[in-house]
């Protein structure tokens, strides 16, 4: 019998009915009276000065209501790193210069989408084309063109992490290996493309429906670029068709629709086409990694040094954070006596790179976990045992960086080891690859400079006992509304169906940083728990006053039953207590408040999740075709809160991570993305997915609500490397670039055979 009545039980998502019946309305579906449709004119050049924009003939087209360009904006350079002025480098409608193909230069509003599209052809833009640069290592050359004034050699951000005496630690090493890796970009490819409907009214207030991971961020960023008070901007994101790290910065849809609406005083809707979503949003950060690792002959890790250049594209965005996190998680989940990371983010004339599920860590693990596998092979050691002996453990301190409270990685090794053994001998073209990873459970970064606590929640209880839960946390499909409803119900002692979750509306919900950095279960969860306990305390005060019990007895509410813990059979209905409490408080509604901001937890995260994944891969040696056959994921996310949601998150992470490993390829030619559509950009289909069974490792995270921590983002980290390792074991080739394409496998095999012939 679980000590919980709601947590980790089987519950339907609180928004399930809306989603399976087609009732859920996304920004894509929003239609307001008098609404106009906007389209964005985009730069055909990777780098050019805007000399002049003439849209007079566009305005003459019947049905066109207005056009805006950078001149209609305040020209504010914005960015999500608000603390650092010079990293706020992006004007979404640039005034003087475009820096990548697809960057907005003008926006049209018309009575129909079709007319708006026609009008784009009537806008005449004169450019002075400038020399462009696309690769970080070219962009840092002396002769490279400068993208942003004052950023010498186009170096946008540098990050350095170091602990221990790296040189000494390398001295101790008996075996040192160095490798160079390349990690590709990846499109978020949310099913709902970027979309916004903005409505500016004569009272000076702006309402924006936006497909957003963080309505609060949008509110703050919009206020900055539009010169409005935050409080006069309302951002609504009731249902969001996926985010994955791509929807918490200002995008062309929200900015251009807002600027058009303010100029025209009409609601304006902008929905990106799939092609626009590919070429003009942001992407996972491409990286080139140099990794040098020193170990003892017995497999003890000594030192690691990594030098990383990331392709930042045209602007900073969240890329600066990815640069830091990739360096930090490149050390995970292992103990290094000496560790040094030097990361450099370089501007190029390509699509800006930013956060995407895994936030820099999938790249880090792609390199780390493959090199570790090769080292075990070089030294003839057992891949699992070598990882195990160097792994984190509860209470371990990552020197000067973080202290690990809960950590179930050791049990993960046991589970996977058993599974691999049971697989036995596999046919020649098949092999299992493993990869470990760890991830943060709520990023402790406040470069946005919010004055508010990271998460907040309000619980109010109605006379009939039903509960209104207000959270700023954003449900983007990951199921946070359900997770938070479960936590609220458990804490309050009611059932999930008693809870109504209100989220995705800055007008009614307390500020919360939103859905990124695996924050919500832990941070919003703690805030909700606090709010629910606050409300419960107010109820119990009345219950104590009512009960004839000796003062030493503790009262509690569980599953709608108010009772003495020592005498659970003696009690009464929670709804009765609510009525009494409200009556006893002169009719006041019960209102509980909660908030959470991590303290004394270092600069990265209050807690860390751990995982080990094994993937069985079948490779056609002649064609290089990869087929994922089977997998096992051992996963430590502390106490699971929502069983169904957890499985879904992990299976989903696998499909996205596998896609990163061998399908999702973003080739650029002269700054132009060559496959901006779903015919040529391949994502996992049902036919490609293997079973993804999950072994939950039971740990308790003291900082998490009910012991819970991150699940769903971290698991994007190991998969690509696991596939690479499987290929290594099946074919003996080392794949140093992802995504791994069949042609690369065939070439690598040829190379190997030639070597062997010599």
């Amino acid at each position: 019998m679980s000590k919980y009545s709601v947590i980790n039980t089987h519950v339907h998502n609180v928004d399930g009915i809306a989603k399976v019946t087609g009732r859920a309305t996304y920004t894509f579906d929003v239609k307001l009276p008098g609404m106009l449709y906007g389209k964005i004119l985009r730069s055909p050049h990777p780098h050019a000065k805007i000399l002049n924009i003439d849209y007079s003939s566009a305005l003459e087209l019947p049905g066109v209501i207005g056009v805006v360009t950078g001149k209609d904006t305040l020209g504010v350079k914005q960015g999500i790193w608000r603390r650092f002025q010079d990293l706020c480098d992006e004007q979404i409608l640039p005034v003087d210069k475009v820096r990548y193909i697809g960057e907005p230069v003008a926006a049209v509003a018309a009575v129909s989408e079709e007319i708006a599209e026609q009008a784009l052809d009537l806008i005449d833009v004169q450019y002075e084309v400038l020399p462009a640069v696309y690769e970080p290592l070219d962009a840092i050359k002396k002769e490279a063109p400068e993208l942003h004034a004052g950023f010498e050699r186009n170096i946008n951000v540098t990050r350095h992490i170091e602990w221990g005496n790296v040189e000494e630690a390398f001295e101790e090493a008996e075996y040192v290996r160095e490798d160079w890796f390349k990690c590709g970009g990846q499109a978020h490819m949310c099913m709902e493309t970027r979309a916004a409907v903005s409505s500016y009214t004569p009272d000076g207030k702006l309402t924006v429906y936006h497909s957003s991971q963080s309505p609060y961020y949008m509110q703050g960023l919009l206020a900055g670029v539009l010169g409005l008070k935050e409080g006069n901007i309302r951002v609504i994101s009731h249902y969001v068709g996926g985010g994955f790290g791509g929807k918490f910065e200002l995008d062309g849809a929200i900015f251009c629709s807002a600027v058009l609406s303010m100029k025209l005083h009409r609601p304006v809707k902008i929905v990106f086409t799939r092609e626009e979503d590919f070429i003009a949003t942001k992407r996972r950060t491409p990286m080139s990694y140099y990794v040098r690792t020193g170990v003892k002959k017995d497999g003890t890790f000594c030192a690691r040094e990594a030098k990383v250049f990331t392709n930042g594209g045209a602007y900073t965005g969240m890329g600066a954070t990815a640069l830091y996190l990739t360096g930090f998680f490149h050390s995970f989940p292992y103990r290094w006596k000496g560790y040094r990371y030097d990361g450099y983010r370089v501007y190029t004339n390509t699509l800006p790179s930013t956060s995407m599920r895994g936030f820099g860590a999938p790249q880090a693990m792609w390199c780390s976990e493959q090199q570790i596998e090769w080292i075990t092979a070089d030294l003839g050691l057992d891949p699992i045992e070598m990882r195990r002996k160097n792994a984190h453990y509860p209470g371990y301190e990552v020197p000067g960086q973080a202290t690990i409270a809960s950590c179930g990685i050791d049990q993960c090794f046991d589970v996977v080891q058993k599974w691999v053994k049971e697989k036995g001998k596999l046919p020649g073209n098949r092999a299992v690859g493993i990869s470990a990873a760890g991830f943060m459970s709520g990023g402790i970064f406040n470069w946005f400079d919010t004055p508010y606590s990271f998460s907040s929640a309000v619980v109010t209880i109605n006379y009939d006992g039903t509960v209104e839960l207000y959270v700023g946390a954003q449900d983007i499909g990951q199921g946070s509304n359900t997770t938070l409803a479960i936590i609220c119900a458990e804490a309050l002692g009611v059932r999930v169906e008693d809870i109504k979750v209100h989220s995705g509306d800055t007008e009614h919900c307390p500020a919360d940083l939103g859905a990124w950095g695996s924050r919500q279960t832990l941070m919003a969860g703690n805030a909700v728990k606090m709010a629910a306990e606050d409300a419960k305390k107010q109820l119990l005060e009345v219950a104590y006053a009512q009960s004839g019990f000796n003062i030493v007895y503790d009262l509690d509410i569980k599953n709608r039953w108010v009772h003495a813990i020592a005498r659970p059979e003696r009690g009464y209905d929670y709804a009765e207590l609510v009525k009494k409490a409200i009556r006893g408080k002169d009719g006041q509604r019960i209102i509980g408040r909660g908030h959470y901001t991590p303290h004394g937890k270092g600069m990265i995260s209050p807690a860390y999740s751990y995982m080990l994944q094994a993937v069985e891969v079948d490779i056609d040696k002649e064609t290089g075709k990869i087929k994922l056959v089977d997998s096992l994921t051992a996963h430590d996310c502390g106490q699971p809160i929502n069983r169904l949601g957890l499985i879904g998150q992990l299976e989903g992470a696998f499909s996205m991570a596998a896609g990163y490993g061998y399908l999702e390829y973003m080739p650029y030619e002269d700054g132009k993305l060559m496959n901006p559509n779903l015919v040529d950009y391949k994502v996992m289909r049902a036919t490609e997915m293997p079973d993804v069974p999950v072994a939950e490792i039971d740990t308790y995270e003291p900082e998490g609500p009910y012991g819970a921590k991150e699940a769903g983002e971290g698991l994007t980290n190991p998969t690509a490397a696991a596939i690479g390792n499987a290929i290594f074991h099946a074919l003996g080739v080392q794949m140093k670039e992802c995504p791994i394409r069949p042609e690369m496998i065939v070439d690598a095999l040829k190379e190997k055979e030639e070597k062997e012939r010599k």
Partner: protein
Amino acid sequence: MIHDFTYLKPGSLQEALSMLADHKDECKIICGGQSLLIMMRQGILVTDYLIDIKGLDELNYITYDEREGLKIGATTTHRLIEKSELVKKKCPILVEIEKKVASIQVRNWGSIAGNLAHGDAQAGDLAPSLIALGAKVKLASSKRDRIMPLEEFYTGFFENAMNNDELMVEVRVPPIQDRAATTYTKFNLIGNDQGIVGVASTVVIDQNGACKDARIVLGNSGVTPIRAKNAEKILRGKGLDDGLIAEVAEAAARDADPVSDIHASEEFRRHLIRVLTKRMVKQAWDQAAHL
């Protein structure tokens, strides 16, 4: 954005053909239209008149006779062919090939003639495999009908032998000869995705187990489906062995004229053609031998 057009919905084949005769180059035929509409939406394809033959039931049929084999009407959907007991009995490989065409949704709405007459058919599954099966197509105009081997239908990049007043009304698949087998496969990354290359092969063997006749057809390996005639020549009259097959594969790779794109370099495409040809010829040979 789709440019304006006048929508014409003929009630009969005759009406369709006279509309075609009236509008010739100013019109396009739409049946399932799933590929056509993509191009119209991208503005690549603009037309004054769109003649919709989707509803022409007189072109929706599958018949068989011993002399001429399968006759499949132009508007017959992929899904009907895939599920047809008649096709399953008379030309089972065609069922297997149909199952490789895109997704169920697309097969439910798309028609065989639409697939074959659309510009990029060479990249599809049906054109190469039907050529390997020796299929013919019937082209009709208001003046006359003519029948031509499918292989002669494709003349260049997005070009075919149809006159601007002609309509593809029927596809004919001759009866399978004794001791003959046809195989088809494509190389792609996911599911039923379009082939990066495709190879279809027909092998007919004689009493002594030697190759009597052969067809090797390459998909997405040039601007049209390509018959690897040199490869076929090497095969004819010979007995099967690995050396021969390697030779055949090599020749097929030479017969191909593939491009480099983001999915594969020209060199890799030739490599794939080599591999798939080996596999398909061997498979077809084995099947033919065991009939």
